[in-house]
């Protein structure tokens, strides 16, 4: 009766595969997880993610082998609810939040999730970036009214941060996206520079550094400062900045950086600013930290063709793996076609290599959504 599980091996794209499995309802088996490693098996954060998945779903079956190198996951239904999750310090909360954002709109009810741990670490998306750069992507698909509140900022290594996310909007299926006409122009640059348990001046120095690079663009720039004090700050000192280049149409590019040991705030600001310029230079509607979310939302849509423009630089190994995973899960393929420049005098599109990704939705329907 039930289809055999989809087999994967290796720990690569662990989160995304579980998300796709949950959305499609197919059981998956992942084996050879770091089987050749000195420390074989799942890492603590992966196990923690599985726990979180179990908390927001009903009826999921997770079997982890004795060595931890094999995981069998039979997804249940997404129910959401009120969940508090303590994230391990090895990863930031963004690691857990990113996949949850993809699942939550297709649940039975609203999700109110409290995550505790490191709020940004420069590897996973920081909470500010998620709010300012990932939520607009969801809005494009008709998934609205997300709220993210940073209750405490926690810097690595000791964390101590706390984030509350409220995702009230449950949808039947995302709307079909059409965004393949023109690369958006950046109309303004916004950002959040934050610090915890360090001198508040460092925030201003970050902003100074970032503005120094961004001023060359001549674009309107405003970077908010957020200094966590007392109760609001976590256990470790740290600072960082998250930048977003916004277009009028709602699309945005993002970059962030977090201060490492021995780094000056100016360096952190400059680094983020340069990374932002790099992302803008890639072209397309989205930058690299948003593209997977975008593709998944397009796949779980109506049985219509949606199109999106993405830059050449955005297409990387992870992108290819995602598309292959989607194919194994749903049997759906996407088409990538080079965008021919519309007119010669358009100085904006000059030098951009862009591709139109056409995706036919799989006719996904949020079956756990209740009717009155």
């Amino acid at each position, binding site marked *: 009766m*039930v*289809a055999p599980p989809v*087999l994967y*091996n*290796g720990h*690569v*794209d*662990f*989160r995304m595969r579980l998300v796709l499995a949950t959305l499609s*309802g*197919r059981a998956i088996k992942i084996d050879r997880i770091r089987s050749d*490693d000195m420390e074989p098996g799942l890492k603590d954060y992966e196990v923690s993610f599985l726990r979180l998945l179990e908390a927001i779903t009903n*009826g999921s079956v997770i079997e982890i082998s004795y060595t931890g190198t094999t995981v069998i996951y039979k997804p249940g239904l997404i129910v959401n609810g009120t969940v508090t999750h303590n994230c391990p310090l090895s990863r930031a909360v963004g690691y857990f939040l*990113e996949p949850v954002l993809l699942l939550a709109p297709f649940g039975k009810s609203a999700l109110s999730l409290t995550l505790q741990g490191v709020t940004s670490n420069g590897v996973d*998306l920081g909470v500010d970036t998620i709010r300012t750069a990932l939520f607009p992507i969801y809005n494009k698909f008709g998934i609205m009214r997300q709220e993210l509140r940073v209750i405490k900022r926690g810097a690595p290594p000791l964390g101590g941060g706390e984030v509350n996310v409220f995702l009230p909007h449950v949808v039947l299926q995302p709307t*079909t996206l*059409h*965004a*393949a*006409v*023109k690369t*958006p122009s950046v109309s303004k640059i916004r950002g959040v520079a934050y610090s915890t348990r360090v001198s508040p001046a460092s925030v201003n120095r970050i902003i100074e550094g970032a503005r120094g690079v961004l001023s060359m*663009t*001549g*674009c*309107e720039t405003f970077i908010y400062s957020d200094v966590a004090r007392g109760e609001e700050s976590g256990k470790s000192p740290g600072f960082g900045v998250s930048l977003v280049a916004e277009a*009028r149409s709602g699309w945005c590019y993002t970059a962030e950086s977090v201060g490492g040991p021995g780094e000056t705030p100016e360096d952190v600001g400059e*680094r983020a600013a*340069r990374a932002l*310029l*790099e992302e803008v230079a890639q072209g397309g509607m989205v930058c690299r*930290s948003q593209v997977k979310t975008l593709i998944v939302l397009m796949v779980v849509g109506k*049985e*219509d*063709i949606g*199109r999106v423009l993405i830059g*050449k630089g955005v*297409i990387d*190994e*992870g992108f*290819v*793996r995602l*598309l*292959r995973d989607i194919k194994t899960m*749903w*049997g759906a*393929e996407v*088409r*990538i*076609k080079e965008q021919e420049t519309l007119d010669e005098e358009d*100085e904006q599109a000059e*030098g951009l290599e862009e591709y139109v990704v056409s995706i*036919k939705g*799989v*006719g*996904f*329907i949020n*079956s*756990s959504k209740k*009717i009155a």
Partner: protein
Amino acid sequence: MEQQNKAHRAVRKKSQKVAAQNNGQNPKAFAVAAPRRLERQARRTLDVNEKRFHVPMVDRTPEEPPPVIVAVVGPPGTGKTTLIKSLVRRYTKHTLSDIRGPVTVVSGKRRRLTFIECANDMNSMIDIGKIADLVLLMIDGNFGFEMETMEFLNILAPHGFPRILGVATHLDLFKSPATLRASKKRLKHRLWTEVYKGAKLFYLSGVLNGRYPDREILNLARFISVMKFRPLKWRNEHSYLLADRIVDITHPAEIERNSKIDRKVTIYGYVHGTPLPALNARVHVPGIGDLTISDTERLPDPCPTPYQEKKDVEEGKIKRRKRLDDRLKVIYAPMSDVGGVLIDKDAVYIDIGHRSFVEGEEKGVGERLVVGLQNAKTTLGEGAAGIRLFSGAEALNEIKPEDDEDDDIRKRNSGRKERRHGRAIAGESYPGHSDVGNDDDGDDEDEDEDYDDADAEEAAYSKSMASRLVDNDEGEAEEFEFADSDSDLGDYDDVDDFEVGSGDLRWKSNLADRALKDYNRRKWDIGKLLYLDHISPEDVIMRWKHEQLSSAVVDGEEEDIEDDAFASENGDGDNGDNFFKKRENSSILPADAEVIDRTIPVYDDESLKDKWSVSSPAFAALKGRFITRQSDESDEVNSSDLDSDGDDVFGNFEDLETGQTITGSSAEEEKQHSVSGEEEAEEQKEISYDKVREANARKKEKFRLRFEEEEQQEDDGLGDDDPEKKLYDTWHDAQKAKIAKQLEINKAEFDEMDSATRERVEGYRAGQYVRMVIDNVPCEFIETLDPTFPVIIGSLLASEDRLGFLQVRIKRHRWHKKILKSNDPLIFSLGWRRFQSIPIYTTSDSRTRNRMLKYTPEHLHCTGTFYGPLIAPNTGFCAVQSVANGAASGAFRIAATGIVLDVDQSVQIVKKLKLVGTPYKIFKNTAFIQGMFNSALEVAKFEGATIKTVSGIRGQIKRALSKPEGYYRATFEDKILMSDIVILRAWYPIQPRKLYNPVTSLLLNEKTEWQGMRLTGELRHEKNLPVPQLKDSDYTTIERAVRRFNPLRVPKTIRSELPFKSQIAMMNPQKKESYLQKRAVVVGGTEKKKRDMMQKVMTLRNEQVRKRHEKKRERKTAYQKKVAENEEKRKERERKDKQEFFKRQGKRRNTGESGGGGKRHRGDDE
């Protein structure tokens, strides 16, 4: 300087506005004459328009639609087969003698019809109801509607109502035209109540030559040909197929070995609904179960429409035909007896009838030989004797395992092992990448088998191509060729350069240079590379990004590309490791992004620093991507001076007419210096004011345009014709426009793709004729195949492949005789599936809990919960208790209908539980309760629970008593009585039983007789077992002891102390004897009888007297009335007389007066 006053503004003349408004017309002439009527008319128009609206639904019917499935349904003997024969004859001039399975005919330029007859069986009716586009509902006009017809209509309703055309037959049996007319009317109105008011009912009279009259059939055909179909929700979301041909392609030897082996079956048919996924589609075949399609393939349309043929001719696919013959009108009915020859992709089938090649009845040598061969248990050459290829040659008993070439390869493989060592060690030095990109999903295992380990190692080895080239030998050339031919990646093919076997290998010369050239020439298509699973994602990106290579790396690189075709996943993805270094020019480091599953990309800080400096070319190119205030101005104000203020009117501007640039300072200088030429300066200043204004206005306009343009281009992805931008009268129109636009986009996108890509991206769309291979079909399906029962392949969405609990809103059908009982099995028809499950009926207790009901309520919906395959909420279903024809009792079989409300993996249903106890000791408000629990532990669980007595006194469980086990102390709001019963109301959670039993009717010999799980009652009845009865449950007569209540006696002492208000009113005992007490004699005996008699007589007399009096009074009143009347009359008369008299008297007096007058005079007169 003289004061300069502003010139007076010219007085504007009063415009003739008022006159213009009227426009020279009489306004009264345009007033509404009859406002009420106008309003009514407007309202009616709105009503009519509103009625037309349905929820906008996407119509995904492709350009070349699939045949319309016309189901002919009706009770046996209504003429279904005759109707199909007549219609087929009408369309094709063919006369079918034996109709088995679907018959597809071309009915018009762009329409085909598939006729299918629905057997009189619940399973067939359910299946047909789900796929039919048009139902020809056959009704025996002479008999009227039958149960089956009503059942079918009620099956259709929850599965989306297709179009229905009633066809009444047997109308020739009516003798009198009046009865016929009345009967027709009756039938029509009955159909209207079932379908909709105004539903078409066709009347067919008698049968001529085994067909209905041509004229009537022609009319029916015309009606069918113009019929329009509305998309139905379920079919708009699923792909489905009505099998018109089924072939078992299992290897005969395997069947020979094990006749019960699962079969491999090909199924042919037109795709309907949404496109069928191209890869591993999960389907449900009602009557069999869930299956996976292992392979799908598109076949040429066996029954193309003239339109399609014309298009094909235009495109040069087929030869042009001069005119359409009647003979060429196409019919396709592979299960029936049309034609007799079937041509398939891999075989030609000739229908030789049913009675050939029968064992024991062979006709001739050839047949005997064939039949003899069929009997062989083993295949040719498998026996001990072996096989003799040539006469006189020795019999071969075994085949040499491999031929020489393979041996060679093996030798080479073994020979290479030593040289490979070095590479293997090198490979191990990249352990981190060992499992990167190994995302084969098991589907590729077949491919993998081809590439054994040796091959994989070979691939790794072949990287050292350059060194191999030095001592090349023939075998390796061959190997290289093999690799190349296996690679289907490149567009170019340089196989010509390989001259295998020739002594001089031309291709060897100058290899590196040419490889470099080729490599740079080659442009990889990401779309193609993307899904080549044997190339790791790293390689895909590397190849596609196509970085310029130095000739040093090219050798290895080129080779790598060639080898990868068969290197497959076993290559561990570290093939590309050597080449990561070439990406240094890119600012993105490959790093361990994949290894730790990070989201933020890794940047190379140093290169970024170089790249994004002010002077860098990258930055200059990027500048256009930002909208800046400065850039806007610099466009407009073409000046060398950048720091000028935009709002300074004396600022720089360009005289657009002359093209001369004027700066503010120059104007000022002029003003200062040329004092003498003041007027001149004035003039110029004025001019410049105007110019400035003009320029500003122009600038503003340009800004506005620019912003508008920007906004417009960025907001939408659809360009100018975005339906969101336009205005529509109604929301409905806007939605429809949106849908239309989306369909247009879909079409444009799909048309751009080549057919192979399109099939992969879109799937097999509706209207295409496909052949699908399904593995692991139960052998009974093939063994008992009967084409008269429809075989439907319905695709499943990803979420429909799971089992869980479904919560449904369910209502027993009002025509079903029995009410439904919780925990009794029921057969549901939900989605594509028919399955038996065990529902529990519940009701919501003020939304706090789902309370179980024993039975479905009468005439009400209730909630039902059962275990089954998950399905999207809002899907309708119907349920029956049995699908077996044998079990039919003649009563209405549809037991219930409803829709799915919610799906989940767990449910919370409770059952009401009342625990009862009695007090055995009562204090004030405290009482000890017995008989409710058996142990202190049980009591402990319910501590604090509310309890209640029958009389309504509420209380709480406090604590278990130590001594009698299960007794407890409770407190109440008032003192309870010993006779009270104490009740604890509790809820007991229950789970529905997890039964999912698909109706596998197609696997039976008797397809109409599927029997699922039986009811307990049925089993008992069959086994003749008595119903076990608890003694406690028996009803007995209740004996209640009469309760005596003593009067309230207040002691004297207390009574005396009571306050006045509370004093009990006491009567003193009567001192005097009453009359009765005093009376000495008590009548009795005859005296009493006499008195009694007398009393009765008196009563009668009294009654008589009373009546007489009554009569008398009546008479008296009548008389008095009469008297009063007479009196009245008399008085009247007297009055009149008096009047008369005095009149006369008066007259007389008057005359007398003339002579005298006055009384006196009169008297005098007399």
